[in-house]
Each structure stands twice: as structure tokens, then as C-alpha cells.
């Protein structure tokens, strides 16, 4: 695969610079750091997110109104250094405390915990919430070990709304954890992505096979099979997701259908139609459905389905508008 970069060392910094060129009115760069912050310092609890580059728009595109206030970027697929997280935290309005929101990967957890400890020594108030939505990575009994994937978009959106609504630091952290508790994601991979540094495939996949729950970098999934019709794929995924989430008839769920970059809207819409049918058959109320590309590992084929079970409190925050150049969600008026 031909990749358009200048050099592997510079690619993340240059991506960030290009993104800033396109949105000079919204963001500013954090000095000496691969990170950016919202120019407007809103007087509220701040949310700082971060993670490896390479899954854009996660996490660079998650900074915006009703979303995060700042982001620290690592190398491709590697957590940002603790120092970068600290620099971003110092650049946002942090007087009311800062919520660190990241996906549950070893490197991210280590760096956010370390940054939090070092910042606490300097008098900062921080809380950490790690998203654990990927049901393929550990059984339900070990939920806290699951890694975080596309569902982080919904947790961040809800936490962003809670912060904008004026909740205090513990309140925002509580709402974020509650959203994470009601969140489940499962992905299917249809073709490998490509490393931006070399253009090499990130893993081997035989043509005509698909794999459920596969890691973006080719870690084995939970189920591999020949390519199936869209409806059959959606059925298999929803069956596992619902068995894990265990909603009761009449419960309300929001659905995020996240394309991995190589899979187009034509395919995603077909899958979305089937998801709605399944929810109807199970007597679940579809509160909201949206199709987007919010976590896209380097041209990988496939998609993930995220289900979020909503109660009145979560709905109130889910309803708020979210606005960034690559992550829009209109306000829902109920």
C-alpha cells in the first residue's frame, strides 16, 4: 500500500500541524508536545484525553465543544509520554479539576497514572477513567481487563456534556464510569490495515476470511470464518453483544456503527438496517443510531458495533450536541 508521509519520525507531528492549519480558530498547539487544546478555556471541569496516533480521528478529533478540552498524542499505536499528558493538562483550564479519559491499554494506563501522580504533587486535581468496552478481549467476569475501542467516543461525549452542564470533578468521573458500565463493543475485520511508516500490511489475513474481535494490529480474534452476508455478520455480532450487555425488554439503547476506514457507507448502512431489525425483535427501544468513522485503524476493513444502554441521567447528557471538525453529533430534543 502506498503511504504518503515524509518520514516515520515526523509523521505524527506533521499530521497534528496539518490539522491545526485547517482549524486555526478552534485549536492551539501545546508547546514542545504532540498535543492540542481548545483555544477557548471554558470555565468547567476539563477533560484531557490521549492515546496512540493511527486511529484517526481518535483521539485528535475528539477535542471540541461538548467533548474533550485537550489531547496528548503518542507515536502510532503507542501511548503518549506522561510528560505530554502533563503539558496538555497545564494548557487547559484546570482550576476545576481534570478528568483523564483514555482507553484501557497498558501503556495508556501507565502514562496517565504517572502523569496524574506527578500532577497531584503539583497540586492538580485529577481523576482517571479508562474505557473497557471491547467484549472480545476478556470475559464479562474480567470486565476491568477489557481494552477500550470505539465506545470511548460515547463515553467522552457523555462526560463532555456532564462537564459542560457544570458537574464537579467527581460528578463528571462518576457519569463517565456509569456510561462505561453500560457500554459494549464488538468489531469485525475484513481486511488488514497498513502501517503508515512502511505501507506494509499490519497482519496477514487470507482473502475471503473475516475475523471477529481481532485486534487492529492483528492479535487473534475470537472467531474466524469465511465471509458471510451482511445480515449474518450483524446477527453474529449482535447476539454476542446482547448476551454480554443483558438488556431487559423495553430498555433503551443507543448504537454507534463505526466504520474502520476501508469499509464504505454502502456496506455500513446495510448492516445498520439489520441492527435495527434485531433490536426491534428483542423488544429493545432504539434511542439513537448513528454511523460514523470515529476510530479507524489505518485503512483496516471492517467495522465495530457499539451498544450503550441508557437511563434517564445518561440520556440527558447523551442528548447534548458534540462539535469538532471530525466528530459531530446534533442535539437530541426529547
Amino acid at each position, binding site marked *: 500500500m502506498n503511504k504518503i508521509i515524509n518520514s*516515520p519520525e515526523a509523521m505524527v507531528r506533521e499530521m497534528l500541524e496539518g490539522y491545526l492549519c485547517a482549524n486555526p480558530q478552534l485549536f492551539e498547539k501545546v508547546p514542545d508536545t504532540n498535543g492540542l487544546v481548545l483555544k477557548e478555556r471554558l470555565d468547567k471541569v476539563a477533560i484531557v484525553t490521549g492515546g496512540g496516533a493511527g486511529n484517526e480521528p481518535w483521539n485528535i478529533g475528539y477535542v471540541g465543544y461538548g467533548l474533550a478540552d485537550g489531547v496528548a498524542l503518542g507515536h502510532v*499505536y503507542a*501511548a503518549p509520554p506522561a510528560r*505530554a499528558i502533563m503539558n496538555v493538562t497545564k494548557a487547559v483550564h484546570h482550576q476545576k479539576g481534570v478528568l483523564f479519559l483514555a482507553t484501557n491499554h*497498558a*501503556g495508556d494506563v501507565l*502514562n496517565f497514572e*504517572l502523569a496524574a501522580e506527578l500532577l497531584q504533587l503539583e497540586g492538580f486535581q485529577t481523576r482517571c477513567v479508562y474505557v473497557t468496552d471491547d467484549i472480545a478481549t476478556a470475559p464479562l467476569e474480567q470486565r476491568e481487563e477489557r481494552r477500550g475501542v470505539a465506545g470511548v467516543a460515547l463515553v467522552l461525549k457523555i462526560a463532555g456534556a456532564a462537564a459542560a452542564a457544570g458537574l464537579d470533578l467527581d460528578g463528571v468521573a462518576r457519569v463517565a464510569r456509569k456510561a462505561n458500565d453500560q457500554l459494549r463493543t464488538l468489531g469485525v475485520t475484513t481486511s488488514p490495515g497498513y502501517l503508515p511508516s512502511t505501507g506494509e500490511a499490519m497482519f496477514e489475513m487470507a482473502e475471503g476470511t473475516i475475523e471477529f474481535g481481532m*485486534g487492529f494490529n492483528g492479535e487473534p480474534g475470537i472467531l474466524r470464518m469465511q465471509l458471510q452476508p451482511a445480515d449474518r455478520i450483524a446477527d453474529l455480532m449482535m447476539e454476542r453483544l446482547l448476551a454480554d450487555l443483558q438488556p431487559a425488554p423495553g430498555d433503551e439503547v443507543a448504537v454507534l456503527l463505526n466504520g474502520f476506514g476501508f469499509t464504505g457507507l454502502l456496506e455500513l448502512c446495510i448492516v445498520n438496517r439489520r441492527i435495527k431489525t434485531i433490536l426491534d425483535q428483542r423488544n429493545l427501544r432504539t434511542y439513537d443510531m448513528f454511523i460514523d468513522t470515529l476510530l479507524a485503524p489505518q485503512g483496516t476493513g471492517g467495522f465495530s458495533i457499539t451498544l450503550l444502554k441508557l437511563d434517564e441521567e445518561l440520556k440527558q447528557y447523551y442528548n447534548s450536541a458534540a462539535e469538532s471538525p471530525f466528530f459531530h453529533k446534533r442535539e437530541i430534543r426529547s
Partner: protein
Amino acid sequence: MSDTLNVDEVKRMFEYVAGAVVDSEAELTVIDKKIGDGDHGTNMALGFREVRKELRAKEFDSVNEVFHCVGMTLLDTMGGASGVLFGTLFISGIVGLTPLKAIDLAALAKIFQKSLTALKKRGKARVGDKTMVDAVEPAVAALLEAAAAGQPLAQGLAAGAAGARAGMEYTKQCVARFGRAKSFGQASLGLEDAGAVSVSIIFRAMAQWVQQNHAGDIG
């Protein structure tokens, strides 16, 4: 003359270590590609290239400052889990330590012993989890034993390097409990942990440098 390393020698030893890690990029990449995401070599080379640059550019008043410089540079440039963990290997051992103008084998062993404790606490890993701890723990044990036996520095560091190497070999028998390798389960058997290989390279380079540049001083 006493069997110690002064500030300048410690600095030059770690410059040599940094060079050895940078030169191992391809080897580490091959290993990490099998059960990780293949970026350990690039990441380590990136961090240690910067370490070499920082060490060359700076003047140090104590051994502690050299360790601090190595650790902080790794922390800042590497990111990922490796940045924190390799940073910890060099920083935690000197926390609260009085500034030293020189170190002997016993002091070196104590620094790495303290780092090992911090590393296990931070990474929540034990021996057998197929991580860098598997190489650091036997290396520290060998250093402590050699120091207790009153062995010369060069001999003690050679024992430390052998310990790290044995620990690295041992990771082939272990099933990973952390990181991406975890999802490979039993398939990770027979393959060494890339972090443990890096630790082995670091201790081997320390031993080599002392062997080549310091062993002759023993009077």
C-alpha cells in the same frame, strides 16, 4: 585503586549502552513482530538515540544525575508502556539517594534492586508473566550476590548480564499476561519477550563497557 565508576565513567558506560540498544533495533523488531505490534525496536532505538544525544551534550555532577537523565529521556521520548517502565528502571533506584560521585558494585546493585521493586509495583508484573521483570530480577539477584561475595565490578556486572540473559531465555517458557502478547495465549510459548531482550542487551552492554574500559584499572 578502588573498584568504582566515577561520574564520567557512568556517563560513558550509558552512552555505550545506548549505542548497543540503537544497534539492536532490527533484532528487537523481528522479535516483537511475532507476538507484539512490532514497534518495540523502533521505540527503544528512538529513546536511546535521544539518551546518547543528551548524555553527550550534558555535564553531570553526580552519578544520580546520569541515571536521572537516562530515565527521564526514555520517559519523554518513548511513550507507550515501555517509556514508563524503562524510565522506571533508571529513575526509581536513585529516588531519595544521596548524590554519589562514584559507585561500586554494591551501590549499583542497590540502585537496580530499588528500581526492580518500583517496576513490579508500577507494571503489576511478577516473574513468569513474560515481561522485562523476568530479566531484571535475576540480573539484580546476581549483582547483589556478586557484591556480597566481594567480587570485582567487571565480574559482578558479567554475572548480572548472565542473569538477565537467563531471565530473557526463561520468558520463552512463559505465557504472557500483559499487553498485546497476552491475546496470543499459548501461542506465545517458545518466543522471548521483547522487553526482556532489551533488558538483556542493556546489562550485557554495561558489562562489556566495564570489561573493555575499566577492568584494567583494578590495582
